């Protein structure tokens, strides 16, 4: 037996356990797909039909551009509005997190000022505060700001990130001091140096922070559920649950809606998972 064959054989037990486990973990996603392509009379047959029935028209029906075959009427769910709201909130929040993280991370890494250790300790201490615990006071704050049912309420509370500040600080600490000293000799200010030199080198941490917060914001549910009450500003995740009582009778369309709300973020995740998994593995941070 040659070496490659022996290595392959030694790996076999790993595959024997891992392949079924991986498939089992992926099954719910497959199931979402199967149900979304099923029909109302086939979806709850027993035993369940385990393969897709390819009723692609479920998607235009769920979207509201074709009539629902079971009722003959059109569904009125403002998907486009929900998607727009989610994309708007997620991109704005991400941009804000990047800006605040870069500035604060740079200050903590490269600038001298009184109270630096105290303030950094404060930032790390804030990380221990669970957002579930601050749900009620935060609601009161947002209410007093007059932000109920606005985009602001969905953006600003998530506009600064301990994870982001920490990651940017760690990155700026690795930049050689000579770089800044040379720039300073040329009359460069901190802001100018940060903008035209330091940030251009910071793509990996920036991408990690951006992906992480984009996913977090896309998936946000509880907070927007609490602070919004009209479709005009509601994100897709909250929209999905209003779907559940607007059309509780048709699980097929419900699954189609879930799939529509999941696919964009799945695409983002698959494209960027290297950065996301890397960032989580190195810092252990979680949503």
């Amino acid at each position, binding site marked *: 037996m040659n070496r490659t064959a022996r290595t392959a054989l030694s790996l076999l037990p790993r595959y024997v356990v891992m392949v079924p486990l991986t498939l089992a*973990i992926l099954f719910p996603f497959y199931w979402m797909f199967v149900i979304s392509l099923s029909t109302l009379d086939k*979806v709850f047959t027993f035993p369940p039909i385990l393969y897709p029935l390819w009723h692609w028209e479920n998607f235009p029906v769920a979207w509201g551009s074709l009539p629902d075959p079971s009722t003959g009427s059109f569904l009125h769910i403002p998907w486009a509005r929900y998607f727009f709201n989610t994309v708007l909130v997620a991109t704005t929040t991400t941009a804000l997190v990047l800006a605040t993280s870069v500035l604060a991370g740079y200050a903590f890494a490269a600038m001298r000022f009184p109270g630096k250790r105290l303030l950094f300790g404060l930032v790390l201490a804030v990380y221990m505060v669970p957002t579930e615990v601050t749900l009620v006071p935060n609601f009161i704050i947002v209410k007093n700001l007059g932000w109920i049912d606005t985009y602001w309420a969905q953006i600003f509370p998530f506009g600064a990130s301990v994870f982001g500040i920490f990651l940017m600080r760690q990155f700026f600490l690795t930049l050689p001091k000579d770089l800044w000293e040379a720039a300073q000799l040329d009359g460069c200010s901190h802001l100018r140096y940060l903008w035209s030199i330091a940030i251009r080198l910071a793509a990996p941490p920036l991408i990690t922070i951006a992906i992480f917060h984009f996913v977090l914001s896309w998936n946000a549910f509880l907070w927007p559920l609490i602070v919004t009450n009209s479709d005009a500003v509601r994100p897709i995740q909250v929209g999905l649950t209003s779907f559940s009582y607007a059309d509780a009778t048709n699980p097929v369309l419900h699954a189609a809606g879930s799939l529509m709300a*999941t696919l964009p973020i799945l695409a983002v995740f698959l494209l960027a998972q290297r950065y996301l998994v890397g960032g989580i593995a190195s810092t252990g941070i979680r949503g």
Partner: protein
Amino acid sequence: MAKSAALEAPRGQARLRRTRAVREGLEAYAFLAPALLLLIVFLLLPAFWVFGLSLFRWDLISSNPDYVGLANFDRLLGRDELFRKSVFQTVYFVAVTVPVSMALGLLMAVLLNAKMPGRDFMRTAIFTPYVMPLVATVIIWSFMFHPYAGVFNAVLNAFHLPKLNWLDNPRTVLPAIIFYSVWQHTGYNVVIFLAGLANIPPELQEAARVDGARAWSRFWRLTWPLLAPTTYFVLLVSIIGSFKVIVPILVFTGGVGGTGSGGGPDNAAETIGYYLYTQAFYSFHAGYAGAISVLLFLIILAVTFVQMGVLSRRVFYS
């Protein structure tokens, strides 16, 4: 003349340096201001405020909250049967979810910790549930738990076991949600454990192998102790995360939009977090919800400190 000029120059430089330091300090505060402002207003301030809030009775609407002292805590700890139930159920939820998802996560990480084709694909696949929107995945899982045609009942049926009414039976609703949570969370543990395993020098494994140690004893004698910092970290994060569980309970038990039996049949899926949410935003008992928040906060802080204490005493390898 020459003498005073010589004295002036260093003094001028010192002043210049001092102005520059002051300017840099002000600039630094300006850089920090946006992040600190948001962190203070939306995290730090509410964290303190919640303690104050817990001393009031308030419906979130009227302009005058009533100061009631410790009455909220008195009721919560003394007379509130539902809260007591939610505490027990939360502990049950944590006590099952955490060990199961950690053991599974560690198993999968150890198996994936080798040069093998398909490793990255499997890691990504396992991690996917953790990043997908909770609402969408809960919706799919509730189809899988369907009392008549769900896939789990099909599995039971294949083994000639009776079907279960998973989400509508007080005895199975919480186990069903635990099952979902393990699925949802294990991928995170795998990623963290894989990162921890990558930090263990391969030479050690190699040396143990050369010495003839079997895989099982290599794991318990070498990998397990060296992985201790990672294990403690995952334990801490998992316990805290599970203690706070709200959204799966909310979506699984149909508490969204006011339909269905929120908290499960017979409140069998009520958890501390979910109770806090309903008290605040359905019953509008802001002060009472504040008191629940304070207790949840104290539990989480206690877990954190106990584990940090254990960490600093028992883990030598980080």
